[in-house]
């Protein structure tokens, strides 16, 4: 069975955050939810300044601290390497969130309809979209996925549950790449079977220097970074924050 992973080429990333937007539109995530985030960093002092960028999806760890602590097994590891969240089982305790060292979990603090970019419950909008509300909603997100047939795709489902990057499980099961990977204008994101030595991701890992984030924690992420870059250290300052607070 394929065991998927992502390889991110930092030498190619321009920090444009098109992946972030692709993720948001594909997965219908609410405001303030960044399943994919792109860090923009600054290091050093003028004129010895370095600016660089680092996309941060969920790491889909092989030793996932979030799945370990989930009290009800809503967060779990799939056989194909994806770390999934069953939004029909999650009780909303947010233990996965505090256990995750990567900050990738996004809780539905309020009803997603009310926290969407277009207020789906706005009567004006309702009238104008002929009742087809929201105006765009990915119909693939409600279904069941995997041999275990659980509800693990997409976001914005209901208030009080945890959501996060799914590696676009609904696309992957169709044979497509995750939305961020498919859309990266610089082809900096790669997705494939890390167990297959001939896959594009395995090849990249052989050809280029690579690292994983917070490797010392032994979370064994399935997201690898390649290129001349390095993991962000103490000197990396994030610039140009996204508006996270809702």
């Amino acid at each position: 069975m394929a065991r998927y992973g992502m390889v991110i080429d930092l030498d190619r990333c321009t920090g444009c955050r098109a992946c972030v937007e692709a993720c948001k539109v594909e997965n219908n995530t609410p405001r303030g939810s960044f399943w994919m985030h792109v860090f923009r960093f600054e290091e050093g002092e003028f004129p010895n300044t370095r600016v660089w960028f680092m996309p941060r999806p969920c790491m889909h760890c092989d030793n996932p601290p979030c799945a370990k602590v989930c009290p009800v097994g809503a967060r779990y590891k799939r056989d194909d390497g994806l770390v999934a969240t069953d939004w029909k089982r999650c009780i909303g305790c947010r233990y996965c969130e505090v256990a995750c060292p990567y900050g990738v979990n996004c809780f539905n603090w309020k009803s997603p309809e009310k926290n969407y970019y277009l207020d789906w419950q706005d009567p004006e909008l309702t009238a104008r979209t002929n009742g087809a509300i929201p105006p765009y909603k990915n119909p693939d997100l409600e279904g069941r996925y995997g041999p275990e047939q659980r509800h693990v795709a997409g976001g914005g489902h209901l208030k009080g549950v945890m959501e996060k990057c799914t590696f676009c499980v609904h696309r992957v099961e169709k044979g497509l790449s995750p939305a961020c990977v498919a859309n990266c204008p610089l082809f900096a994101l790669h997705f494939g079977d890390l167990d297959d030595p001939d896959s594009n991701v395995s090849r990249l890992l052989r050809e280029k220097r690579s690292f994983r984030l917070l490797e010392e924690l032994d979370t064994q992420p399935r997201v690898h970074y390649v290129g001349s870059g390095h993991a962000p250290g103490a000197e990396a300052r994030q610039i140009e924050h996204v508006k996270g607070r809702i």
Partner: protein
Amino acid sequence: MAVQERLERLPYGLGRFTPAWYALAGVLLALVALGAYAYLRQLIEGLIVTGLRDLGTMRGAAWGLYITFDIYFVGVSFAGITMAALIRLLNLEALKPVSRMAELLTIIALLLAGLVILPDLGQPLRGIVNLFVYARPQSPFFGTFTLVIAGYLFASLVYFYLDGRRDAALCAQVPSRLQGFHRLWAAGYRDTPAERQRHARTSFWLAIAIVPLLVTAHSTLGFVFGLQVGRPGWFSALQAPGFVVMAGVSGIGLLLVVAAILRRVLRLQEELTPAVFAWLGRLLLLLIVIYLYFTAVELLTSLYAGHHHEVALTRALLVGEYSALYWVSMGSLVLALLLLVGQVALRAYSIPLLVLSGLLVNVAAIGKRYLIVVPSQTHGALLPYGVGWYAPTWVEYSIILGLFALGTFLYALFVKVFPIVEVPAVQGGKR
């Protein structure tokens, strides 16, 4: 009738609800209603009405006041059943008068601990159902849920219940509105030597069983934090023992306060002698010293050998955003320590000063619980998300206040329906 003793009327003002009591109950129930309203708002709107937010790009804290008070309440629960168990195992006859009030403290604290988890859950109903159906032993919550809330609470109830049967039987002889209740509790207890012996045996074994359960339960709560490799300030082997000791500090401290109040309100000067308080004070002193030792060890480790995230977090605690709360907590603890040391050294114990110590250590306990839960989230991101912030909202404060009020109300109610101090032996029907 097998019961040798007789009561002419119910002791300790049982069944007599005074205007002052009603006034107190009214205030408490009003606060409970406020908490209920706040919770209703939260149920409708979602946790957006709290100050909680996601970690990561949202730069918030996912756990806040609810979890802080959950571990505080569980901590407080330490006092009662420990005291009861210690009294039973070590035969500390002098302390027997505080035994039941301590047990009640435990039960109510655990009840509140269970309740305060509900507002923390995004899907409370699912929380109740799914935990029974799916709970995973690997999650540290499993221990919290099964051992603390279910096991510990159940064990305490059993102990409390069995321990009260004798008094229940005594009270059941007195005709009153509460007679049925007392009779039910007594469940046919007749104070025969066989029964006494049986109770002595069960309570001994129960105490034996409860002590390890107690350590496990409090440790489990420590493990909720201590096993998280990805959060500076949490990942520490001292977390579990620290939780046990801090639980003792806050529990004994609160017990001192409760005992002093009951002593005054129920005029229990005879039963609750200064010696009892002194004993509690010495125990508290010991626990504070151990706790301070743990704190020093932890601080030294993180400042000396911690990686930069650990150091940054420690800095936020000592001199940064959390320094005010940190030093208020530590100051309270040290002040309590000094008060206690002074009294021990002089061998002169003052109940007001002991109560003050009890209050101080509880301020410290709440502060320290908060400082364990929150800063590691706002200032403990391993990826450079930047510093986060968290400020509880009125909803969170109201819910916590409501729960405190509920606990106090239940305590006050219980004191009015059941002897909070063991009814002393009476001879020939006269007290």
